[in-house]
């Protein structure tokens, strides 16, 4: 490739991390930052079985999130010994191998994808991996970040490197202005509904366009987070002033003269004009409404003022059967208005929407209102620092006064591996990222939406167009 060939941001990051190529065309990539969580125990077992130690413990950072209940910060309180062992073994492995642990008492603990950016660990130009598919989140800072399997986690621990075949690139351009009450969550649900859950399979997505540039860092984190729900390996946004302002002064970000040099390098990361992407998707920001899922895949999303689709209108028999099955599981009728759907539970949190801005947006709706009778509503901050910040701003008071439970940081009902699940048949308005059958507990029915929309569902007891509560005409 000649030096003059315009390169994408992805190409630039990929090229800089190439250690060697294999005869079959796979590349050994060097990993800048390896994030670990309390589901990583089997990888350490694999290493132990081979007698291999960590190659670069200074590049590994861990925090317990998946298995820790959010009503306590004491591992010994976890009643199920197998779950307790997940949390405790992470502490043991950190001590034995010498990597950094943001433990339960540490004040920096949280969901791994909230902690990375917050600590300044996730930086532009890096390759970041984690044994979790939502590692795509960190791409919001202009990193190449992707989830890997457990065997690959062990491989990175042992070698600090990972074999990858170069993926294709896709640019999703969102131009125009987002309407009132429309958030990054609505944009990504709209994108997934447009291209499908396999729409970006095999691709790394770069999000571009004026609406993306206009998002805060937190909005970009939400956007990149759900790239995997469109099948993408990774999602990324070119670093700009928003990125630098977010990173400046964070504990692990470069400081002083080093910071200036780093920003200089980061400015060159953006895709060159004329760089070619293997696929292009264009989205008009004005078309995006507050969006809600009705089925059991993130692609089954519609505008909140819409209706549950009718399988009779499906293009083929297979699709019709799939829709019928989803409606049956979800307990919905074809043609039912989305705003008529009553909810039993509300979950505000997760690595998609558990950051301070998400909680502020939800609190704006909760302020001065009450959680509807019969609804159980939880706010689970994405990290201990998010929780402290929210408390400093008085958000916890707003939530508590409205009747929301205010919990400790963790994954909680996003996946329920810590035991926090909905009952069979319960309907949950959730700010998380997956509405698969049983994701929030066997038989639980999940509707994905933004934090403000989830708060609106909590106070009205049904899925509600948040714009009504904001006093906007719909």
């Amino acid at each position, binding site marked *: 490739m000649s030096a003059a060939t315009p390169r994408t941001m992805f190409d630039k990051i990929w090229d800089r991390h190439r*250690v060697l190529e294999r005869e079959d065309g796979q590349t*050994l990539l060097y990993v800048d930052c390896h994030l670990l969580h309390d589901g990583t*125990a089997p990888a350490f077992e694999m290493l132990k079985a081979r007698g291999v130690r960590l190659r670069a413990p200074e590049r590994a950072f861990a925090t317990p999130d998946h298995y820790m209940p959010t009503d306590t910060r004491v591992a010994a309180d976890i009643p199920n010994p197998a779950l307790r062992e997940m949390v405790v073994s992470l502490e043991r492995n950190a001590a034995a191998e010498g990597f950094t642990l943001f433990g339960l008492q540490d004040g920096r603990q949280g969901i791994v994808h909230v902690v990375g950016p917050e600590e300044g660990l996730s930086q532009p130009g890096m390759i970041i991996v984690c044994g979790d598919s939502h590692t795509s989140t960190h791409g919001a800072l202009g990193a190449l970040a992707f989830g890997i399997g*457990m065997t690959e986690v062990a491989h990175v621990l*042992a070698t600090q490197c990972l*074999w990858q075949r170069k993926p294709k690139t896709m640019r999703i351009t969102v131009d125009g202005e987002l309407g009132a009450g429309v958030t990054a969550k609505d944009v990504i649900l709209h994108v997934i509904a447009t291209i499908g*859950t396999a729409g970006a*399979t095999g691709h790394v997505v770069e999000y571009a366009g004026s609406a993306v540039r206009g998002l805060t860092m937190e909005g970009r984190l939400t956007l990149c987070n759900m790239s995997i729900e469109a099948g993408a390996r990774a999602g990324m946004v070119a670093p700009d002033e928003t990125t630098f302002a977010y990173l400046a002064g964070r504990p692990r970000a470069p400081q002083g003269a080093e910071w200036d040099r780093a920003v200089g390098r980061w400015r060159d990361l953006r895709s060159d004009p004329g760089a070619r992407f293997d696929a292009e998707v264009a989205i008009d920001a004005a078309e995006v409404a507050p969006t809600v899922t009705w089925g059991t*895949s993130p692609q089954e999303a519609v505008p909140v003022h819409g209706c549950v689709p009718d399988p009779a209108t499906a293009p083929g028999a297979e699709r019709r059967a799939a829709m019928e099955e989803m409606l049956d599981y979800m307990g919905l009728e074809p043609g039912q208005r989305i705003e008529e759907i009553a909810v039993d539970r509300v979950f505000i949190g997760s690595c998609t929407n558990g950051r301070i801005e998400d909680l502020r947006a939800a609190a704006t709706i909760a302020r001065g209102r009450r959680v509807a009778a019969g609804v159980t509503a939880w706010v689970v901050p994405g990290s201990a620092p998010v929780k402290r910040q929210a408390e400093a701003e008085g958000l916890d008071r707003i939530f508590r006064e409205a009747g929301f439970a205010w919990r400790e940081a963790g994954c909680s009902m996003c996946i329920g591996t810590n035991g926090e699940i909905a009952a069979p048949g319960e309907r949950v308005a959730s700010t998380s990222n997956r509405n698969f059958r049983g994701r929030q507990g066997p038989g639980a029915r999940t509707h994905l939406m933004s934090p403000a929309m989830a708060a609106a569902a909590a106070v009205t007891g049904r899925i509600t167009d948040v714009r009504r509560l904001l006093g906007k005409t719909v």
Partner: protein
Amino acid sequence: MERFQVVRSVAVPFPKSNIDTDQILPARFLHLPRDADHGACLFRDLRYRPDGSEIEEFPLNRPVWRTGRIALCGDNFGCGSSRENAVWAMHGHGFRAVIAPSFGDIFAQNGLKNGLLPVRLLAGTVAMMIAQAETDPQGEVTVDLQAQTVTAADGSVHDFEIDPFARRCLLEGIDELAFTLGHDEEIAAFERRFGRENS
């Protein structure tokens, strides 16, 4: 890793598109240690009622398919969460190959590293093989990794592509880590250079 050469067995159809890893292995089994019986948890909530009784219609509960080692799946099989446990569950149950038009990326990668061969065939071919399995559940399918072919129950032969390195690892039963550890010097040289560039 166990060596993979030729697998011949009845083929179990899971025709739906977008079967995600939460269905393959529900999250509440994610804490099980590597050597636990993940196979018993495979498709747990599609296969059993909450009271533990079997859902007769689910393919794995049909006597003829209980011991199938080849799965025939719809588009985008194994999408969603990166949990390798989903592959352990398929493998633990006895599956050695999964044939589908497409896979979730991470699932396919995880499969290659655990002796569960992801085989991509054209959607039309997979649909035909699923139809064959449904009309003749006893019909056997052969997956030959050496030859890179699938022989359908009707005897038709279909080539498939696979990453040559992954193929070698599977054929010989070796893993990637041993290979990479052999390149320690190149990694160390990269680290020296990389450190300088970043300061």
